[in-house]
């Protein structure tokens, strides 16, 4: 069953066509990746899906509903969670409070004015479960901003998971990480995919990560989709090879 389908999506910033007639669809429960050189339009695509930018044309259908024009917080409520490329958490809230805020929001309790946060027993158990699965339970009393980068990324995923999304978008989950941190994050992404039965779409520049865990890969180049398919198909695709292997120098140059 298709959970998300993107149809002929376009977005230009000034003269730059950041997203160029992109169409793709995701199956329920799939773990798929978007790859492409820097500046290919990966983050823009995420921003379009999550309502942060409005596309010039095209449609984004999620579970049969057109998302275009909805504000970000409503798209989140429909079941699309997202994590960000640079760590994006609440720095002066504790780790526990970070996740708690998200869980409370998911259960529409953010505006509750009189019941103490410690008295939401069921929801706090949920917070505890999430903190265990992202491995931050022991650091729950630390301030989010004081965590190491890898832990901040985990916390960010925790925030996204707290919304029990049907679809989870992860923007470069291993960006800026050491190889150990990358390995543990990859394990975490896999675990999330299995444990929470969530459809996952992530962008990544590390090819080893992508080909190691993704079931489907979409290749984005200059804002347009060049190829979509299973890892083996992508690896064998001559056009992709041209982008990635033929322009290897360009790629390493742009990775910064």
């Amino acid at each position, binding site marked *: 069953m298709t959970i998300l389908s993107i149809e002929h999506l376009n977005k230009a910033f000034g003269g730059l066509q950041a997203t160029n007639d992109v169409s793709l669809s995701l199956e329920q429960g799939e773990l798929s990746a978007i790859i492409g050189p820097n500046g290919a339009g990966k983050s823009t695509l995420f921003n379009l899906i999550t309502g942060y930018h409005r596309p010039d044309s095209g449609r984004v259908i999620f579970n049969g509903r057109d998302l275009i024009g909805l*504000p970000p917080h409503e798209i989140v*409520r429909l079941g699309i969670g997202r994590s960000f490329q640079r760590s*994006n958490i*609440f720095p002066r809230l504790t780790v526990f*409070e970070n996740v708690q*805020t998200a869980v409370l929001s998911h259960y529409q309790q953010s*505006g509750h*004015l*009189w019941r103490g946060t*410690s008295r939401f027993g069921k929801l706090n158990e949920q917070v505890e479960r999430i903190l265990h699965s992202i491995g931050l339970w022991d650091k729950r009393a630390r301030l989010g901003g004081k965590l190491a980068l890898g832990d901040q990324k985990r916390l960010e995923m925790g925030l996204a998971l707290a919304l029990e999304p049907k679809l989870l978008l992860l923007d470069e989950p291993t960006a800026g990480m050491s190889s150990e941190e990358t390995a543990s994050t990859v394990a975490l992404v896999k675990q999330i995919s299995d444990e929470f039965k969530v459809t996952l779409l992530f962008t990544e520049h590390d090819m080893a990560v992508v080909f190691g865990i993704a079931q489907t890969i979409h290749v984005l180049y200059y804002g347009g989709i060049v190829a979509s398919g299973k890892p083996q198909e992508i690896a064998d695709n001559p056009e992709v090879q041209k982008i990635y292997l033929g322009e290897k120098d360009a790629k390493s140059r742009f990775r910064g």
Partner: protein
Amino acid sequence: MQTLRTIPAWTWGLLAAVALAGLSFVLGEFQLILASQMLIAGLFAMSLNIIMGFGGMVHFGHAAFYGLGAYTVAILAKNYNIPLWVALPLAPVVSAALGAVVGWFCVRRVRLYFSILTLAFGQILYVIVLSVAADFTGGDNGIHGIPVPEIISSARNYYLFTLLIFTLCFVALFIITKAPFVLTLRAIRENAERAQFIGVDVRRHQLTTFIIGSFFAGIAGGLMAILNRFVGPDMLFWTTSSEPILGSLMGGMFSLTGPAVGAALLLGLHLFISQYTEFWPTVLGILTIIVVLAAPTGLVGLTDDLPRAARSAE
């Protein structure tokens, strides 16, 4: 230390309230008036700090809502002979209603632009009270001789009355700060963009905060009107907003009690220093500069906020 912490917060609150009430039998009339002023200044500062400290929105027009509360009481009681028991409860309602209108515009702007917009709206309300609606407000002269019921007309009884209202407001605000509303508000202060992406309607949340702050400012203004039996347009002028701002800064912006303590102490200090010099603004100015340069989260907040945050997670 550990044993002290196991005592629930409400016990401390109750003890403090009883002690404050007990003071009324010790203090003289002059000190009772001062103590009432301190309570009102504390309430005003807390009302601002919900917006500024917890919400991260620097509000330079808050005095307008304080003044509106005061004028609501004065106009109803003096011009229309409406009993104070009706007029006083209407003060926060009027302030909150106007807060809803003004806030609706202001929360659409962030940071500096928010601050300047609140300043603009505050000044608009000030000019309305000063000259546009001078027939009702008495213009520059304000309104004198607000009638006060017999039972709260003595300094002692009015202090106790103010203490009662203050305590009720404090409890209400305390409950709110422990509830998801303020947790979410702090999250918005930290990272509004991220808050949006966990499904929070940021603007609506901020608007509600603005209304709550205006509501309690209205109560503070109403209480002040009764205490002085007088209201004047200066209560709405933008520089009046700065007193609770400085009080909050000195008391600690990330806590509920900090601003109340800070504002009350500021008032006490004002009186104390006035005995020696007429240049109180100089002292206040220097104090502000020192606090800004030295302790950006305020004196109480520095020690209070983090351990408490850590505790709530356990």
